[in-house]
């Protein structure tokens, strides 16, 4: 057998890499095509020139700018609340002694067994009772905290040596100050992982906002896109522009912080 001038693994990886990334490239390129060009046969990958009609239609004729803003608000609130609530709870379960701790932690862990479809109906009814149907709150309340986040932070704090905190406590530092000024700064890697997890979950969430929000001006990007897919089935450049808007923020974040994303993806394993 003649030896290849390159590793045979390239023969597997190159086509595979293209298979994974080309649809995304086509998505971006198609958003810059005219609808006539998209309907041509045979189909083209590269636009003849930069047509902005799809983008113009998306930004001017739909509420997409509003949806983008809504998505940003929902993700920002989700990530902030998730970090605050899960880090304090993780610390409480890891370090503090209090009545009912065992039962409370068990209850939190048990929730990972409950599938989302079991929760759809009662959650919708609950949101209706507390009056947050058709508000952005319906999109971020499900992501304020999670069993995964609490568990992740608890495991992290358990792995920290307790001596540091003990010294501070003996010096008369209260629990809260010890947590904020000594423990939390050490928890940056775990917090970053949790932030990525929450960002992915809340930004990409479709089901919760879909069932709880029907007012066009309160849609997140995912809901807005899913909705006008049915009604504007032929305006592909506009649809693809919307897709770019919905995916690019996370793809850019991924490209900038790939290591952190990959660490989060492999850690999601803790959830099971």
């Amino acid at each position, binding site marked *: 057998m003649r030896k290849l001038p*390159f*590793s045979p693994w*390239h023969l*597997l990886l*190159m086509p*595979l*890499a293209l298979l*994974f*990334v080309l*649809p*995304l490239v*086509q*998505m971006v390129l198609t958003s810059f095509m005219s609808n006539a060009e*998209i309907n041509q046969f045979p189909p083209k990958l590269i636009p003849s020139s930069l047509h902005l009609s799809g983008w113009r239609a998306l930004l001017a004729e739909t509420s997409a700018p509003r949806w983008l803003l809504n998505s940003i608000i929902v993700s920002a609130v989700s990530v902030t609340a998730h970090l605050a*609530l899960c880090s*304090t*709870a993780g610390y409480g379960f890891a370090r*503090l002694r*209090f*009545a*009912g*701790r065992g039962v*409370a932690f068990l*209850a*939190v862990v*048990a*929730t990972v067994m409950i*599938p*989302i*479809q*079991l*929760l759809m*109906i*009662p*959650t*919708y*009814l*609950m949101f209706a009772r507390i009056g947050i149907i058709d508000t952005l709150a319906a999109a971020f309340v*499900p992501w*304020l905290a999670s069993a995964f986040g*609490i568990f992740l932070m608890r495991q992290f704090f358990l792995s920290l040596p307790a001596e540091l905190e003990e010294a501070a406590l003996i010096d008369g530092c209260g629990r809260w100050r010890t947590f904020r000024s000594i423990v939390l700064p050490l928890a940056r890697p775990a917090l970053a992982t949790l932030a990525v997890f929450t960002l992915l979950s809340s*930004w*990409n969430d*479709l*089901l919760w906002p879909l069932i709880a929000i029907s007012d066009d001006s309160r849609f997140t990007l995912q*809901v807005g*896109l899913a909705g006008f*897919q049915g009604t504007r089935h032929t305006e592909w450049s506009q*649809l*693809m522009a919307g897709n770019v808007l*919905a995916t690019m923020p996370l*793809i850019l974040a*991924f490209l900038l912080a*790939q290591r952190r*994303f990959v660490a989060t*993806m492999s850690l*999601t*394993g803790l*959830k*099971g």
Partner: protein
Amino acid sequence: MAGVTFALARPLAAPRARRRLDLTGWAFAGPATLVVVGLSLFPAVWAFFISRAKWNGVAPGVPVGWGNYQRLVQDPDLLAAARHTLLLTVLFVPASIILGIVVAIALNQKIRLIGFYRTCIFVPYVASAAATGILATFVFNPQFGAADEVLRRLGVPAQQFLESPSQALFVIVLIALWGEVGFTTVVYLAALQDIPRELVEAATMDGAGRWRVFRHVTLPELRPVTVFAAVWQTITAVQLFDLIYTTTRGGPLNSTQTIVYYIYELAFQTQRLGYGAAAAYLLFVVTLLLTLGIIWYSRRRGSEVF
């Protein structure tokens, strides 16, 4: 249980000091616990009561006992949905695991462009399932989609893909794999890098070829990860919703109607809340048994399987 042992182990502090400790503890752990339990355990229990009533969410519900469940067992739509869900799971789970292992091994090589390959293969995972579904309807479009164009160049006649009742579910499995293989790959890549180098070296020194090292050293080391990945991907497959909502909405001719999508339709399109909740409970029990089954099976088979 943990709470009881813990109460005994606690030093006998003065009641007031103890109460202060309890307060501090709950101040830290309480808010998140309240959110998580309030948004899952509480509604899950509520769903059970809803499942025993005939209710459209507006008029007062009529208690029907186990009536909803009895009707579900004979519901042809539910049976069809269960069949679709099962087929989807049986195709998706092994494929995502095998692809994950193969791609992870390839990405674990020290060759040029490896960073580029990794980025390309992981990137679809961060794209939302909703956007992936919309992109897929474009790529698999029978009129001008890229998929048919590739087939045409290979001399294969054009296919209907998502618009064909006999193909749609398989296309959805492919799309789901495109979006999820990044995840299994990352998990396996991490596991591969955790295998002690000495193990592989020792086997090679003893004269084992590449394939035997893989078969008898690498695969057994990946077993725990495989159990996790199987459970995780099963849950993903059984709960698949976004992708179906943004591609076929259960069609054509209900051929991609999965159980979760069916529940969504029952509850939010036809307002049959009690019946929908009962279907959700039934699915919950089945998934639970399935998950336990996978764990039990892989434990029993031990290293023979992986």
